[in-house]
Every structure is written in C-alpha cells, then in structure tokens.
C-alpha cells in the first residue's frame, strides 16, 4: 500500500504522432522500470499492428517508481493513450482514472485538432494539465511560438511548458519533477467500503479476461469476493497485480492505486467499462457515474473471398471480439458476396485495423464492402428502424422520412489550404459553424453528415492539404435529410454490395462517378457489359464496358500441353480473385474502390 500523497496518476495525451509513446519510453527508462536490454522504441505499443503502423491503438498503463528531489519515492501510474480520433474513447476513459494529464505538443507542428479535443476532455475530467513541448531536437522546432499558440488557441497557461526531446531524453528529469510537483495526489479513504472503477479489460490467452481498475476508496486484496455493480456479477479475485508493464503480483491495492486482476471471467463482454467494483459483502452504496459505452458508428460487410472460409471467418471474428468490445458483428447474406458479417466499428482506422488483423492473424482473404453509417428510418406506421446496410432499405412508400447522423468536425489547417478544405466540406454537404485564426493556421468547425465522412474524407483532406490539416470529430445528432438508396446494376442486375444511401441532389454525380470507376475496375469480358446507377426504377447514369476482342495464344507448338495447362491454372487462380456476379466477374477490390470520390 502506498500513501496517497506519494502517488501521482496521469495520462499522456496529444495529437497523433506528437510523441506520447516515445515520452512514455523515456519515463520508463529513466526510472529503471524496465531493464535497459529490454527497452525498445514505443515499448508500450505491443500489438503487431501498432508496431507496424507506428501508432498506438490501445491505451497502456505502467506503474513506475520515481525518487524525487524532495527525497521521497513516488509511485507514478502513467497511461499512454492513442492519438487517432477513432480511439478517442480510449483517451476519455483513461482520463477518468487519473488526476492529471501531460499534454504533449510537437514543437514543430503546434496545436492540432486532437490536441484541442484532448485538452477539452482533460478539462472536463477536472485534470491538472502540464504542457510539454516535444521534439525540440529538430531544427524546425519553435517552442516559443508554440507556447504562445497554446495560450491563444487553447487558453491555458503555457509559460511553464516543459521543452523536451523524447527522442534524445532532453528535459525528461524536468517532466518527472513536474509530475510530482504540479499534479495533484489522488484522494480517497482507506477505511471506506471498496469502490473501484473498471477502466479497461482485455483478453489474455494465458490468463483469460484481465480487468484494470482504479481504486477510489477502500482496499482490494487477492482472494476477495467482489461484485460488479452494473451487471450484478460476483467474482473471486484470483490474481492481483500491477503493470510494470508486465504483471507483478501485489498483495493489495489501496485508494489512488491502479492495477489489474483476474477473476475467471469468460469474456470481455461480461465486463462493462466504467462499472463500479465493490466487495460482495459490505459494499459501497452509490456507484460511480459510469460512462457511455463506445458505439460503433461505421458499418461494413466482411465476406470471405472463398465461400468455404465462412466458418473460419466466424471463428476469427468471435475470437477478435473477445478482446474488442467496441466492435460489433452480425451475420449477413448478400446476393453478390454470399455469407458474411456486417460489422460495426468506431471509425475507418478501426475498421482497417480489424480487417488487417483478421486477414493476418487468421490468414483469411476478405472482401470489404463500402462503409456506411446507421440511418434511422421513420416508417409510416410509426415504427423507427435502424438501417445498417443500404441493401436492406425497405420500399420507399413505407418510409415517411430518413434521418442520418451528423458530426461536429474540427479541422486545423494552414491558411494556404483553407480554400480547399472549405470546398471539400461544402462538397460533402457540410454547414460551416465556426472559422477562427491562430497565427497562420485556421480552425474551422463544420457540421457534416457522418455518411460523407466515413468513406474517404480523411484521405481527401490529407491530399488537398498535403498532409497539413488535422481533423477531429464528435457525433452530434440525427437529422432528417432527403436521402435515397442508389443501386448499381451490372449487366442489368443490381449488385447489392454496391448499393449506397445518398442525398437526392448528389445522387446523379455520385452515380456517374461510380459507373465510370466500375468501368475501369471490371476487366473486359467476352461480351459487353452495361453498368447503370439507378434510384428505384429510374436509371440516372450509365456506362458500357466494351467486349474483349482477342485473347488467344498464336502458336501451340511441339505438343507442350503441359505449359498450356499451367497457363490455364494461372488464369483460373486469377479468376479466384473475382466475384462471379451473374455472368460478370467483379474483382474484390472493386467493392471499395468504386465508391472513392476523387473529384
């Protein structure tokens, strides 16, 4: 048990890539938490996909011990958080477990969209904030200008911002001192009934479900019988540990401490993030407020390329879901793609990550359909339905009106590119809410339909601003609009996996682009193929793929049928990368590429 005033708990927050995980490395290293020979860059990013992409996806906690200048040794619990907007939920729940935040700002880039979003969350959580200016080893670093920017844009005092280089280690001792001096110690009563917050849970192949908690009041010990107040479930604590970052067993955790336990819990889904944990007997009366679960906002279909892999896909999805409660799935059948799953994700990066993991860790070949959002259908009979898949759109005459999710998007962009950004937002049915300047950077706030953003908005934003814009969003509300289902017909047959919901006014333009794209994406066949976009029975755009004229081997010589047979096998393998649709073969990649809006 550690005395309260010898504990400091904090999260490290920043815009993506500003150096959170690298700073965590230095803090871990300087305090000798991990042996020098076991150190590696972004030590906490332990998932393959994190290491490969160089980003943090899951928040990670480490307990370190720091002998401060005042002669006392402090226990510091640091939580490294992800920067990408899709994983903002990880940041918000992490913040609830700690009292302060290190706000890392890249001194070469300054305040970006997620910097802002994170600061507001930290302020909401009542945090003390210590600004840290990172990457001052770089020649382009402008710590003084960025200090001013922080004050101007965010409105917090940045005079004591600590200049550091997480790469070289410069300034790290100052950070440690500031943590101890400037962040508050946790509060809590040791003699009160146990009250702990369930911060996170994950599945470990050796240990089963591991639950991370922050103790508010009371003491938890190995062997204790506990109760989860929201679910009412009862468990016995099998193992109690702290993360350094490996698990190190500990006899008890008292107020202000962060640790993990196992309790023979079967699935991550049996735990609720934000739940209150207390003792089965003599528990506390009032639970903590809890937090809203993360809601999937982007949906898409995942289908096996080889229909025989459906069972393998189901197994893989179930296993993955064990560890990722924010990802939802249900079975789906498509006339074009056969059996698969409609899956919900926190955002596009989350979608990509899940798909990558399924393909890699479970060795599956998948077809991904276009991402879509959840539309609300207000039926004439008064019923309200959720539409996860445009293919399921009921007959229009039964629908009174349709609502779609809107977001509040914050974009920070250098002046020079502002025009392009405004045009992009306008093209995506955006309504400007706010436009302010900080130096040569503009901050625009737009009210946008999520449906227009889930697909390739982020890519387009990056490309029109040469990577200089940053973007953050929050779902705001559902709002009615003039939405219709657009079908795509290939060779006169509708392809359900290509159907999309669009705004009536934009349907024609979208339809035209999709038909043109498909014309390039679908290889020529032995016959000509009409491609049409239609709303209901009305065709709004069309293209034709000309028939292939010639594919024949001129010379067949010397009786080498073997070579011809091998060639045939190769062609057949190429065909496997296609989906047979009626008489037409559509390449798997077309289902996504057709929807990209380049113009």
């Amino acid at each position, binding site marked *: 048990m550690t005395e309260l005033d010898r504990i400091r708990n904090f999260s490290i927050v920043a815009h993506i890539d500003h150096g959170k995980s690298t700073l965590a490395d230095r803090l871990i290293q300087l305090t000798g938490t991990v042996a020098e020979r076991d150190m590696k860059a972004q030590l906490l990013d332990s998932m393959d996909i994190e290491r490969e992409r160089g980003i943090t996806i899951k928040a990670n906690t480490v307990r370190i011990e720091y002998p401060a200048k005042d002669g006392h040794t402090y226990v510091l619990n640091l939580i490294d958080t992800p920067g990408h907007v899709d994983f903002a939920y990880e940041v918000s729940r992490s913040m609830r477990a700690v009292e302060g935040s290190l706000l890392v700002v890249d001194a070469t880039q300054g305040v970006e969209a997620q910097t802002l979003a994170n600061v507001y969350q930290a302020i909401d959580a009542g945090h003390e904030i210590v600004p840290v200016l990172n990457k001052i080893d770089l020649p382009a670093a402008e710590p003084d200008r960025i200090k001013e920017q922080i004050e101007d844009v965010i409105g917090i005092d940045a005079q004591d911002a600590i200049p550091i280089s997480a790469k070289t280690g410069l300034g790290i001792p100052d950070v440690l001192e500031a943590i101890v001096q400037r962040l508050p110690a946790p509060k809590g009563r040791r003699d009160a009934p146990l009250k702990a917050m369930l911060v996170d849970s994950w599945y470990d192949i050796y240990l089963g479900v591991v639950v991370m908690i922050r103790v508010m009041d009371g003491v938890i010990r190995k062997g204790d019988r506990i109760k989860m107040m929201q679910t009412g479930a009862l468990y016995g604590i099998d193992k109690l540990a702290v993360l350094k970052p490996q698990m190190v067993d500990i006899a008890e955790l008292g107020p202000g401490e962060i640790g993990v336990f196992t309790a023979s819990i079967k699935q991550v889904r049996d735990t609720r993030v934000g739940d209150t944990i207390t003792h089965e007997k003599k528990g506390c009366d009032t639970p903590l407020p809890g937090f809203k679960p993360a809601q999937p906002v982007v949906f898409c279909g995942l289908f096996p390329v080889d229909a025989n892999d459906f069972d393998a896909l189901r197994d893989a999805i179930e296993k993955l879901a064990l560890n990722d409660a924010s990802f939802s799935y249900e079975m789906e059948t498509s006339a074009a793609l056969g059996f698969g799953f409609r899956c919900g994700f926190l955002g596009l990066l989350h979608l990509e990550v899940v798909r990558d993991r399924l393909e890699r860790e479970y060795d599956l070949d998948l077809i991904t359909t276009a991402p879509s959002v959840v539309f609300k259908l207000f039926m004439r009979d008064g019923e309200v339905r959720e539409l996860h898949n445009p293919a399921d759109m009921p007959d229009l005459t039964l629908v009174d009106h349709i609502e779609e999710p809107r977001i509040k998007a914050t974009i920070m962009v250098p002046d020079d590119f502002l025009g392009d950004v405004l045009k992009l937002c306008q093209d995506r049915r955006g309504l400007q809410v706010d436009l302010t300047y900080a130096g040569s950077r503009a901050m625009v706030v737009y009210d946008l339909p999520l449906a227009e953003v889930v697909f390739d908005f982020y890519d387009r934003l990056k490309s029109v601003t040469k990577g200089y814009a940053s973007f953050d969003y929050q779902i705001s509300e559902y709002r009615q609009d003039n939405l219709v289902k657009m079908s795509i017909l290939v060779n006169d047959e509708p392809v359900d996996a290509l159907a999309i919901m669009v705004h009536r006014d934009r349907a024609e333009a979208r339809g035209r682009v999709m038909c043109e794209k498909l014309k390039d994406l679908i290889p020529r066949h032995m016959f000509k193929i009409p491609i049409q976009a239609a709303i209901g029975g009305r065709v709004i755009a069309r293209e034709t793929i000309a028939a292939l004229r010639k594919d*024949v081997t*001129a*010379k067949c*010589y010397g*009786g080498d049928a073997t070579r011809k047979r091998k060639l*045939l096998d190769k062609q057949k393998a190429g065909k496997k990368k296609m989906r047979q649709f009626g008489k037409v073969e559509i390449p798997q990649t077309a289902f996504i590429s057709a929807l990209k809006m380049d113009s």
Partner: protein
Amino acid sequence: MDDWRHGGFGVYVHWPFCAAKCPYCDFNSHVAATVDQDRWRRALLAEIDRLAAETPGRVVETVFFGGGTPSLMDPSVTAAVIARIGARWQMAPDVEITLEANPGSVEAGRFRDYIGAGVNRLSLGVQALDDADLKRLGRIHDVAEARRAIAIAQSVCDRVSLDLIYARQNQTPEAWAAELHAALRLSQGHLSLYQLTIEDGTTFAKRARAGQLPGLPDEDRGTDMYLITNEICDEAGLPAYEISNHAAPGQECRHNMIYWRYGDYAGIGPGAHGRMTLGGQRHATAGHRAPALWLQAVEEQGSGEVSRETLRRAEEAEEYLLMALRTREGVDADRYAALAGHPLPRARIDDLSEFGLLEMHDGRLRATRDGRLLLNRLIVELSETP
C-alpha cells in the same frame, strides 16, 4: 479402346541448334560452336530404342523434326533416325515425315539429301517477305534467299509449308494483306501464319519493356489482322484448320493434328515433350532442356527424360479440350465426357453460344470465328466446372 487412338501416334525429334538466336524466339534453341553429329546420332537412336521398348506394336503415322533448326542436322543423322524409327516401331505406309528448315542457302543445298533420307514434307521458316523486317526479326536470311530456298524445296518435295510471322512492328493491315497474297502465290497448299508474340524471357520482351519495340499493333489492330488473314486464306482455298495453320483440303500437317487431336507422341531430344499411354494411363514426359545435360543423361543414365508424370483423367480431359478447341474440327463431346467423367458444361456452353463464341453440332463443340479470338478465355470458362 485407349483414348489416344482417337488422335493417333507420332514421333517428335527435337534438334536444339541454330546458327543464330532470333530475338523473339522462346523455343529450346541454342547456338553452339560445333556439334558432334555422331554423338547426337547415337543419343537420338538410343532414345528411340528406349521409347520404342515401352510402346511395342505401335504404328508410327508421322515423324516431325523440329527445332531449333533441324536443317542443320547432318542428313545422314536424319536418315539414321528415320531408319531406326522404322526398325523399332512399324512405319505406316503413308507416313508423313516433316522437317523444319530455315530458308538459308546452306540448308537449301541439303534439301535433296533429306528427301533421300525419307523426309516427305518440308516446313520453311520464311517469317517475312520484306528484307527490313527480316532484319528486325534478327533473321540471317533475306527474301531473295528465301525465294530460292522455296523453289529448291518445291523442286524436290511435294509438300512444302511456309511459316510467316505477322503483326510486326509498324506493319499495316494493307501491307500484311499484300505480303500474304505474295506468300499464297509462293505456297503449295500449307501456310503457318503466326501473330508475333512477345514471349517472356526473350530479347524482344526486354526491348518491349524498355519501349524499344514501338509500332506493335494494339488489340483492335491485332484482331483486324487476324480476321484479314482468315478472309484472304479462305478465299485462296486455304482455310484455317487450327488457330494459326491454313491448308488446302488434305494438306493439313498430320503430325500437328496428332497433338491437337490429343493422340500419343514420343518426344525425343532436349526439351521434347511426349504423351504416352502405358497400361491405360497417359504419361506426360519431357526431356532435359539443356542440350549438354540431355546428351549426358542419355549417355550416362540411358535416358534423357527429366520428368514423367501420370496424368489424372481430369487433366487429360483438360488437355484434350485445350488442344482440340484450337482446331476447326473441334472437341468430340462424347470423348471429352468419357475422359472427364462428366459431360461438357452445358449451361456455360449455351451462354457462350448465345454470345456467338461457341457452337455445338453433331456432338462436336467448336469455337466460332469470334470464339477462336477469345480461345484462352473460353477454355477457362469451360474447364472451370469440376
């Protein structure tokens, strides 16, 4: 009855040497400073002995000396090979014995000797009737030499076929039509007309990748040239009996028809392929490709074979389809069904017939004119079904 009997039995002899390597050629051909003709004769004879011992009692309907450039083979070797084939197997009374020859002056001088050795059909690699184009194709003969060689060949042999390559760089359909008419005037009932193919691993492939082969026809022009070729030959009374082969009735190359009808053939020489039905099962054989390796294998191991594979019925069916669909006579549906264990895919055929690519008549499946142009695709479509 074994399936191969539908196609017959022939012997292919590969002579892997050439005076120069043509930049478009991916055949198993090599330029060698000297060739020990005696050693090669012994090795070829030994292989005949070996293969004949495996297939006793067969009647040889055709022999084909291919290459490489078999007209660089000493006529005495040709004579010995033909004699040995006749001794180990039984030679059909009307046996067809073809020799591929390059139309250079050296070779032309020997044509009479080949006929003396038993050859009764010559196939001349004329390739083009344009000196500049012959140069571009890397050929060492010119048009005048080729004309002389054709005349000499025709004076000693009743059946002389000419090979031409079209769709060459900057060749217009009109120029090709004129050239083809000229070739038809020179010919005696058989022409092999190949559209220039850029084969992987050749000098032409490298040049094409580097953009150094400008003026090759695109798909549309290639198609047009193929169609013109067929039209002109039809009119001249030499219709296509296979994708690239044209003959007056009765003048078809019977040896090649054995391949396309999926008969059996013994493959002798480096890189030569064979199909031999032994004990009711078809085997695919291939010789070592490198001439020196093959020679050594024959001398030291008593066999030049590098691989021998027993074909499954499905593979046989596929090969039959692959080969026979190239021909005008097409695929015998009953024969296919017997090989494959299932009939030809009826529904697919109906679809493709609707598009005018296939036709089924009197139990035979044929590619139409348009279908022949898309043969590779048709075969994928037809062979996919299990």
